[in-house]
């Protein structure tokens, strides 16, 4: 019990770290109102994720309707080029290598920075909001398509 309360104390100092998962583990006997995760819940979480992947897949492949739906139809490309034209199956996007020093941008960059660079340079489009749903969907598709790739942050 002593151990538990100590952990709870230390958690209080870092209330944001670890979020829900740590809270569920540590709450333990003192507040036993949590249930084990249910298959239905997992299914919902997965569906939410795959819906983002689907949207991202369509944006990545130049689907105009999806771009309109997400409010980026005039931004992603002005040349007819779509991401997938240079990156079939999101190959060569290397999400596993970010963050890193990105030579083209000449700065330390995230995958979202690089997505916006591709929109601006090869596609001659207009940068999108890094927090936008379109950006998150693109990120979801790119990382999903590279499932199984080994993290190599910083790699050229």
């Amino acid at each position, binding site marked *: 019990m002593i151990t538990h309360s100590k952990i709870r104390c230390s958690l209080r100092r870092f209330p944001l770290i670890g979020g829900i998962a740590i809270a569920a583990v540590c709450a333990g006997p003192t507040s036993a109102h949590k249930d084990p995760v249910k298959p239905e819940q997992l299914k919902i979480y997965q569906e939410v994720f795959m819906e983002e992947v689907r949207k991202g897949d*369509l944006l990545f*492949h130049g689907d105009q309707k999806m771009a309109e739906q997400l409010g980026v139809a005039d931004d992603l490309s002005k040349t007819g080029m779509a991401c*997938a*034209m*240079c990156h079939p*199956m999101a190959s060569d996007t*290397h999400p596993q290598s970010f963050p890193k020093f990105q030579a083209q941008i000449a700065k330390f960059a995230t995958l979202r920075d690089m997505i916006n660079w591709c929109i601006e340079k*090869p596609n001659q489009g207009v940068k999108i909001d890094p927090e936008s749903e379109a950006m998150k969907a693109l990120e979801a598709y790119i990382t999903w398509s590279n499932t199984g790739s080994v993290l*190599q942050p910083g790699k050229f």
Partner: protein
Amino acid sequence: MSDELDRIRREMHSVLQPEGVRPDDSLKITRRTFIHGSLVFGAATVGQAFAWWPLLNTLDIAHAAETPFKFAWISDTHLYPRSLNTRFVDKVVRAAQEVQAMDPPADFLIFGGDLAQLGKIEELELGVDLLKEIKIPKHYIPGEHDWYLDMGKKWGELFGQPNWTFDHKGVRFIGLDTVSRGPDYWTAKNMTPEERMGHMATLDGTVAGPWAGVGRDQLDWMEKTLADWDKQRPVVIFSHNPLYEYYPPWNFWVRDWREVHEVLKPYAKVTNIHGHVHQVLYNEIGTLRSIGMLATSWPWPYAPEGLPKLTKPMIRVDPGDPYDGVGWSKLDVAANDQLETEYIMWGRKEVFVQSPEDHDKHVSEVIRPRIADNMWPYR
């Protein structure tokens, strides 16, 4: 997919590459390559880094040309209407001017397919217009981007029969149509011509299936075409797709490659020059050697698996430079019976990898096929 590919590869090699069988000895491969006219030798350090240090792209063909000559290759221009994309137009203009400026001039130009991006009349006609700069004879084969909007109607009006043959100074040249025999993926789903084209125009699409093929009828035609040709004399075959299996998920193959090799097996000196892959490729299967050409439009990355061991990869390109990783090719059939391929890659002095970091597969990746084109709207 990987296991299946592996099995096919083993089968391909046991059937077509029994021990000791290679392209005829006179088809000597040297390490020489010509880049912007200058002779380049591979550095030893690179040879060590890539254990399978390749061969480059100089072919010696015995009994080849009666007199030396050159020809030129341009492909994969993927033109959009001029109002949408001027970069692709500019690159075709540059390639055409450079081919026309060749001195001594090329005897002919091969256009290797994917003239248009979405098969539109406007795009195909723009291509014809831009290539008018080139005054030597021009021979065209189709790419999938040229075909699937109107099933080759406009292409046929402009260029005629998609497969053809001619002899030139002791070499038999054959142009193949590897794109028009795709399985019907559109009728049952009531696709519009634009939708049909859209699926075909997506390299990593999952809807069009294994569309690349030569077809029994064309195989028979090729067999007949070669029947009167001395088996020791050189044959050069042009096709849009490679005539072996490199990476079927992107249709970097023809599905009936086994039958193609059955037809070509008796001939000792066959060279296939192909487009579609937008990258430097080299392979040998049985007595057939294959060379992949650059696009003028944009480069494709190497496939995640299946890159022929004999390929010395092209250098990893800078996506910020529209002239990097793209260009055209000069092919030189010399008096000493060599066929030399020179990649004119605009953005580079060095076409090939110089260090492991120069290879686009230096960052290892595992990737998977897309899903959305099969989910929507044809659920």
